[in-house]
């Protein structure tokens, strides 16, 4: 009888100790699981932060991550990126259009400037008086100058090769002064206009005939 009782006690003892052991094991497993979850969450947060800051490193960071949640975050970042790209493209196109308009305007302006600079007025031999043609050209220059009040110009006086070069320096100065006088009388501020004479030293046409000489007896206009 006593022998049977001691067997029962032993069995009971074993059951209790086993159950205690199981209990302990399950608690440890639970703790480990919580820790893992926390780590994953931290990693995710870190990835999100990095995505915000440096989208270029997206691939590098997402590689070691296997969880579904980080995949989702990566996709979102990609979407955002694409949207940004589209926006940039839209802005670029707008900018290009604007630039094209500006360039067009600049081209037109440059053409006018070029015309202003390249349309010389001409003089008769040993003369510095303005011809009617010269006055017409100067009138156009006046209106352009009045539309561009920020610009200053320099008028160069030139002569043909005939005659003394010292006299021609003086004559060239007279020619540039004649042109300046016209502009100033027509209302262009004198402070915007300067003059220089090159005499016969800078011919436009190197020839030695009346055609060349006629081209070389000129006042030339430069925007400064």
């Amino acid at each position, binding site marked *: 009888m006593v022998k049977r009782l001691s067997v029962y006690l032993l069995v009971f003892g074993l059951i209790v100790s086993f159950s205690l052991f199981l209990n302990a094991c399950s608690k440890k497993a639970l703790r480990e699981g919580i820790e893992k979850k926390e780590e994953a969450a931290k990693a995710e947060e870190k990835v999100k932060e990095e995505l915000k800051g440096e989208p270029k490193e997206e691939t590098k960071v997402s590689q070691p991550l296997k969880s579904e949640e980080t995949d989702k975050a990566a996709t979102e970042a990609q979407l955002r990126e694409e949207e940004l790209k589209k926006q940039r493209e839209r802005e670029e196109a707008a900018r290009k259009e604007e630039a094209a308009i500006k360039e067009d305007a600049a081209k037109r302006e440059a053409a006018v400037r070029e015309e202003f600079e390249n349309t010389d007025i001409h003089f008769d031999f*040993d003369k510095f008086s303005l011809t009617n043609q010269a006055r017409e050209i100067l009138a156009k220059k006046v209106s352009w100058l009045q539309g561009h009040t920020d610009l200053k110009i320099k008028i160069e006086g030139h002569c043909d090769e*005939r*005659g*003394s*070069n*010292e*006299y021609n*320096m*003086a*004559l060239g*100065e*007279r020619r540039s002064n004649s042109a300046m006088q016209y502009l100033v009388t027509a209302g262009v501020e004198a402070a915007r206009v300067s003059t*220089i*004479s*090159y005499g016969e*030293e*800078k011919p436009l046409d190197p020839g*030695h005939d009346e055609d060349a000489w006629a081209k070389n007896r000129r006042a030339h206009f430069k925007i400064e």
Partner: protein
Amino acid sequence: MKKTGYIFIIFICLLFFSPALSHTKTYIDIDSPSFRRFPIAITYFKNLGGKDNKGDMSKEIFEVLTQDLEVSGLFTIMDTSLFIESPVNSESGNDNKINFGDWSIIGVEALVKGSFRFDNGNLEIEAKLYDVFHGRFLVGKRYVGERQDLRKMIHRFCNEILLSFTGEKGVFDTKIAFVSDESGYKEIYVIDFDGHNMIKITNHKSIALSPAWSPDGKMIAFTSYKNGNPDLYVKDIIVNKEDRISHYEGLNIAPAWFPDGRKLAVTLSLEGNPEIYVLDKDGKRLKRLTNDWGIDVSPTWSPDGKEIAFVSDRSGNPDIYVMNSQGEDVKRLTFQTKYSASPKWSPKGDKIAFSSLAEGHFDIYTMNPDGTDVRRLTSNSGDNEYPSWSPNGRFLTFTSARGGNKRIYIMRADGSGQRQIGAFKGNQLNPCWSPRLQ
């Protein structure tokens, strides 16, 4: 400036005391209407030792002698083929050895003989002039220098030859400053009167114009656009130092040295109109001389400094005028054409040279300082402009476009003996003959 340019003839000595007292007798009266050319024989100089590759030096001596005496217009140079005595290797030295009869029989009245020695880079030349007609020695000189001084030595001996025959030294060792565009820019250059030994004076890579020698030959004034505006510069060519002396607004052009070299007449337009002013050498403005609505440029002083001739268009076209040194007593001198310019007063004060436009071309003329006795020196040879007198007034340099481009020419003061000097690329202008140089 290359130091070799002004070399060193270490000494020039009168070898022989000349009992002929050649200076007291004038063989050639240049100014006489009955003047005739003096027949002279030039022999090849004897090589007394040292290297003379293919006889180059001997040939060059002969060529320079011939050229200078030809340019002078005073001599008929006898053809060497007429010489009885062989011209090459003829004896030099002892006067007694010369058989004057051999020379007078072919019509020669003067004879140049000499010798040279080229040793260790040293060149020694001995040159002598004889009066064949009277059978006597006139002048002898010995020159010592380097190979590159050969031409200069012979030029100097030709000066002596002229002194012996005319009582006035030649100008064969003088130089000419001018403008050339051969580099693509207009720069100032200097050459010997015969076109040799070109030296570049400016390197402004701009437009440099109107060189004017100071009376002592040490400086050249000129205009340059180096800083954008036509400003006046003075360059000391001995120490190679350049100063911008005037850079007023507008024109700073046409410099002309006062005879004492301390001031210059120039054209400035700082007061709105091109007028003639007098500046001191440092550019300080001293005095305005002209005051009228027209252009006043290209002043030139009379040699006594009392008068200035200049160009003005106050009566409608450019003409030559004259005024006193205070800007008073203005008189117009030219009336004959519609364009007269570039006046240059002769060193003796007796003439004014200028260029004038007639029949579609510019030509060189001279006139008396009162506008009378106008003589045309060039014709039918394209445009001839920018006359400038040699320091003895016997020659003029000028530019001519007779061959297409404008080139430097020289001629005698009567228009004879016109010849191009040098052969440069591009166009040349504004030649200015130097004073006598030390």
